[in-house]
C-alpha cells in the first residue's frame, strides 16, 4: 500500500506517513515540469475525469496539467455543461461516468460532503478538489510542499491563518494537515467569521492581526469569499480591510523571514495589499507551481495502489 487511503477526501484521514510520502513524491516530480518535454509515460492509458460543479481556474487546470504530464487522458466536465442541468442527480451522473471506466474522479462541489457521498457509490478513487466549506486537501498539501521547500522541516513551525475561517475549506484542510505534521496553528479574523468549534481543534484564536503575526514562520491569507458575504457577517469590506488586510504595516512586528501564502484567487487590496503580494516573501505563485507536482503525486500514488497485487 502506497497510501493508507483509497480516496483523498480530507486531510483528516491522511497519516503523517501519507503526507510525507505525498510531499516526497511531489518533490521528485518538480523536475519534470522544468524539462523541455514536460511529459513522462507513467500513466499512459489511464483516464482521469475532472468533475467540477463550481468555477475554478487554478485547481482544474492544475489537475488537468498534472494528469497530462503523466500521459493520462484527462476529461473535463463542468456543472453548467453537464446533465445536472437537465435534472440528473449527482450520484447518477457519477455512476454514468463510472460506467465508462475512468481510473480517477476529481470532484469539486458546492455541497460539503459531496465527494464523500460519491465514494460510497463509486469504485474508482475520488479526489476531493474542494467541497463547500468542508475540505480542499490537495490545496493543503501544496501549501505544505511550498512551506517545506522554503523552511526545510515542517515540525515546530508556527502558522497564522488570516481571514474568513468559518467558510474556508482551505483553512480546515490546512489545520488538520499542519497539526498532523507537528506545526502550530493560530487563526486570525473577526469573531463573526470564526467558528466557535475551532478552539476545540487545538488552534489558538486571535482577533488582532499585528500581534498574531509576530512570532510566526508563515502567514496564510484567505480570500474573502464575496459569493458568501451576503449573510451580513461583515458590515463592510472596507471595515474588514482596516483590521485584517495584510499590509507591510500590519507585518511591522513580524519576522524578516516570514513567508506569505494565499490559496488564490486574490482580492487585491481587500485581504492582502499590493506591495505584500508582490514582495519577495510572497510565495503565491510558488504555490501554484507546487500544486501541479502535488497532483501528479496524488495520481501516481492512488493509481499505483489501485493496481497493486496483494503480495
Amino acid at each position, binding site marked *: 500500500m502506497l497510501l493508507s487511503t483509497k480516496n483523498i477526501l480530507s486531510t483528516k484521514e491522511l497519516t503523517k506517513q501519507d503526507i510525507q510520502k505525498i510531499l516526497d513524491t511531489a518533490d*521528485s516530480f518538480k*523536475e*519534470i515540469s522544468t524539462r523541455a*518535454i514536460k511529459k*513522462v509515460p*507513467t500513466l499512459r492509458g489511464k483516464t482521469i475525469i475532472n468533475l467540477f460543479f463550481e468555477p475554478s481556474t487554478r485547481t482544474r487546470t492544475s489537475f488537468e496539467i498534472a494528469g497530462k504530464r503523466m500521459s493520462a487522458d484527462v476529461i473535463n466536465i463542468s456543472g453548467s455543461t453537464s446533465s445536472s442541468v437537465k435534472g440528473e442527480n449527482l450520484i447518477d451522473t457519477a455512476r454514468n461516468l463510472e460506467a465508462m471506466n475512468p481510473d480517477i474522479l476529481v470532484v469539486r462541489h458546492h455541497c460539503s460532503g459531496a465527494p464523500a457521498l460519491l465514494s460510497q457509490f463509486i469504485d474508482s478513487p475520488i479526489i476531493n478538489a474542494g467541497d463547500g466549506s468542508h475540505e480542499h486537501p490537495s490545496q493543503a498539501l501544496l501549501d505544505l510542499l511550498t512551506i517545506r521547500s522554503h523552511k526545510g522541516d515542517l515540525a515546530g513551525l508556527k502558522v497564522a491563518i488570516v481571514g474568513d475561517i468559518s467558510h474556508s475549506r482551505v483553512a480546515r484542510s490546512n489545520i488538520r494537515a499542519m497539526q498532523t505534521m507537528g506545526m502550530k496553528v493560530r487563526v486570525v479574523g473577526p469573531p463573526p467569521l470564526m467558528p466557535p468549534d475551532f478552539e476545540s481543534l487545538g488552534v489558538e484564536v486571535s482577533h488582532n492581526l499585528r500581534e498574531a503575526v509576530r512570532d510566526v514562520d508563515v502567514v496564510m491569507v484567505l480570500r474573502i469569499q464575496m459569493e458568501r458575504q451576503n449573510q451580513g457577517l461583515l458590515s463592510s469590506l472596507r471595515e474588514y480591510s482596516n483590521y485584517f488586510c495584510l499590509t507591510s504595516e500590519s507585518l511591522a512586528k513580524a519576522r524578516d523571514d516570514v513567508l506569505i501564502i494565499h490559496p488564490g484567487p486574490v482580492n487585491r487590496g481587500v485581504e492582502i495589499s499590493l506591495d505584500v503580494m508582490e514582495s519577495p516573501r510572497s510565495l503565491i505563485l510558488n504555490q501554484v507551481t507546487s500544486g501541479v507536482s502535488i497532483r501528479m503525486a496524488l495520481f501516481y500514488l492512488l493509481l499505483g495502489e489501485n*493496481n*497493486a497485487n496483494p503480495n
Partner: protein
Amino acid sequence: MSSTLLNAKDISRAINRISHEILERNNGAEGIALVGIRTRGVALSQRLKEKIESIENLTIDHGILDITLYRDDLAEGIQKPELRKTEISFAFENKHIILCDDVLFTGRTIRAAIDALMDFGRPSSVQLAVLIDRGHRELPIRPDYVGKNFPTAKSKRVQVLLDEEDGEDKVIIQEQSK
C-alpha cells in the same frame, strides 16, 4: 548461500579498464557525458567520471536518471521502487552519453532509461557501461563496456554492493530468496 563474484580490487580494476575503453572508443573525453541509473549506476558513473577526469585532466558532464516513471512493470504491482529525482542539467545535443548501471539482465531497465534520455534531447550517441552482464536478455540490447560477463541461472540473484550505498565494494551471487 552466497558466493563472491568480484571483490573491491576486481571492481576497481574493472572501472579503470572501462575508463580507458571509453576514452579509446570516443577518441578522448571531448563531448562525452556520464549518466548513472539510480541507485547503484550513480556510484559507478561517478567513479568512471573521476577516473576519466584524472586521466584526461578535464571535467565532464554528469547526470542522474531515475527510471521509475518509465518502467513497463508499474501496472503489474511488483513492489514499487521509491521514486527519486532525476538530475540532468546539461544539454544532450552533440553529446555522447555513457549510460551506467550495475547489472545488465533482461534489458528492460535500459529500455526505460533510453526512453527517459530521449525526453531530454537528442544525443549524438548513447553507449552502455555495466559492471556485470549476467545474460537472459528479453530485448535487443547489448552493452558497450562490461566489467565482467557472468552467465547465470535465471533463478540466481546477482547483487552489487558499493561503498557509497552499502559500505563495501563486492559483487555476490545468491539463490533467489522466496
